[in-house]
């Protein structure tokens, strides 16, 4: 039932340096099913996600949208009772393949969480955490990475004079942008965002949204949100989840102006959820 409507006049018109012709696919989900113990949390998910798109995943609480995004970098498996069937391909490689280490997957696929979760370390240490883990030790390189990442997350000007202060001194919105900078530091291919603004005030939310628009030039972004206006504002494509199923997946304009499924319409017009 899920159709990935491929439209030529997609909102995304980014020029990719390598292949200028057709946009590639970062994720291809095939017949994905997931159980938490007895609970069937994801049912027959089929989704194709394009590179350099912002793909929004919306739906009411408990619809499986967070579970799905956490499956994309296999964080969901931190819960021991999880069972998965079907397949997800990242750049045409199954993420469940034994030879594809989960650490490598997560190196390519960064994640920004619901609640800002900087480490209780300095701002600088937070950003270099990833590069250091991946063996980059050169102080000069690390300094450059810190500046580049913090600039990329639009927080450089606010923190450049206090890089060695504890990250917990930042406001919630700044912490979340720091977390985005930390994620950018290892230059991922895809960035997963799990309701990144749900704990933020409106102004911080706006800043993060602007940032997402900026980031899509270089990254593919998949964002879970329960805020439909947010999805409408920032995303190119939107998938609507309900009770663990993908009800509809199409260009964001289509979803919000002319949904084909009655349930999608009910949801976006606020009749439930």
């Amino acid at each position, binding site marked *: 039932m899920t159709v990935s409507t491929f439209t030529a006049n997609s909102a995304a018109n980014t020029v990719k340096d390598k292949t200028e012709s057709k946009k590639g696919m970062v994720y291809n989900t095939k017949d994905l099913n997931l159980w938490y113990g007895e609970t069937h949390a994801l049912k027959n998910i089929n989704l194709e996600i394009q590179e350099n798109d912002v793909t929004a995943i919306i739906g009411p609480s408990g619809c499986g949208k967070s579970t799905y995004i956490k499956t994309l970098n296999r964080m969901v498996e*931190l819960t021991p009772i999880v069972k998965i069937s079907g397949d997800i391909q990242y750049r045409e490689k199954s993420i469940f393949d034994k030879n594809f280490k989960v650490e490598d997957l997560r190196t390519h696929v960064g994640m920004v*969480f619901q*609640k800002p*979760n900087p*480490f*209780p370390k300095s701002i600088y240490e937070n950003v270099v*955490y990833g590069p250091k*883990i*991946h063996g980059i030790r050169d102080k000069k390189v690390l300094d450059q990475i810190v500046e580049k990442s913090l600039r990329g997350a639009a927080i450089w000007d606010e923190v450049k004079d206090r890089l060695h202060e504890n990250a917990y001194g930042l406001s919630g919105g700044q912490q979340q942008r720091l977390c985005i900078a930390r*994620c950018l530091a290892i230059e991922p291919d895809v960035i997963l965002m799990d309701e990144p603004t749900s704990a933020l005030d409106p102004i911080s939310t706006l800043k993060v949204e602007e940032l997402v628009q900026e980031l899509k030039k270089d990254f593919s972004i998949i964002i879970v949100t329960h805020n439909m206006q947010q999805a409408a504002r920032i995303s190119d494509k939107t998938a609507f989840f309900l009770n663990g199923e993908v009800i509809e997946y199409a260009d964001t304009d289509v979803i919000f102006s002319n949904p084909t499924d009655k349930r999608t319409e009910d949801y976006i017009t606020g009749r439930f959820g």
Partner: protein
Amino acid sequence: MKHIDTKLVEKKMGSRLTTNTVAKNVFLAATLFGLLVLVILIYRVVADSIGWIDFEFLTNKLSTDPEKAGIMGAISGTLWLMVVVAPVTMILGVGTAIYLEEYAKKGRLQAFIQTNISNLAGVPSIVFGILGLTVFARALGLGNIVLAGGLTMSLLVLPVVVVASQEAIRAVPQFLREASYGMGATKWQTIKNVVLPAALPGILTGVILALSRAIGETAPLVVLGIPALLIPLPDGIFDKFTVMPMQIYYWTLDSALVAEYANLAAGTIVILLLVLFIMNSIAVLIRNKFQRRF
């Protein structure tokens, strides 16, 4: 018919309230009893040691002459003992805690280790002394040297460090681990770089409390046969040694023979309590400074 005789209730109320007030004061008195004992105890040892604690008392070696006797040997013995106990309990205690909290699957082995640790915490210290005597001193042939005493003490205080470290590790929020895993960090990288640093204050508090327990413990060392004779100052973990509690023990026993030994024992107690007080204050400081940062 009324079931409750209001007058009777009112009449009884007065005596019920009186009983309550009396009981409250009795409970308060019981609580203050502990304080009273503490005051008397400290007053006694301080009064007995006045005039005895001076620079020479701290720097002199042991002597049968009360005027010349000092606790330098006991102090350096205590320090050398810590050189063994601190790293050994830390490695064993924190390692066990990491295994139980981060790696062990919920199951029989994990439950068994956990139960075993709480049972070890209840084993009398003197039994650890017998273990040390049999295994370290005799079977391994170490004799009554610092290493044997230190290993025995390490096993004795191990449960304290394990339990404190487990609590500290459990208190590290899951979202910090997720942040690390999300960057592509492996499990060990996450533990080493995120979990342990965040749990460090709690772990350190536990380690300090464990060390202060080891510093004050006597029974296992008595069993190991730690001498109170005139021995040279220890120079390393393979030397014979004595510690402050042993010094207190022998001086107290011998105070029946030489009355001044009681003063020496009191002086040593004052120093021992001071050391423990300082260590506990540090532990409390660490605990308060780093509490609830998340």
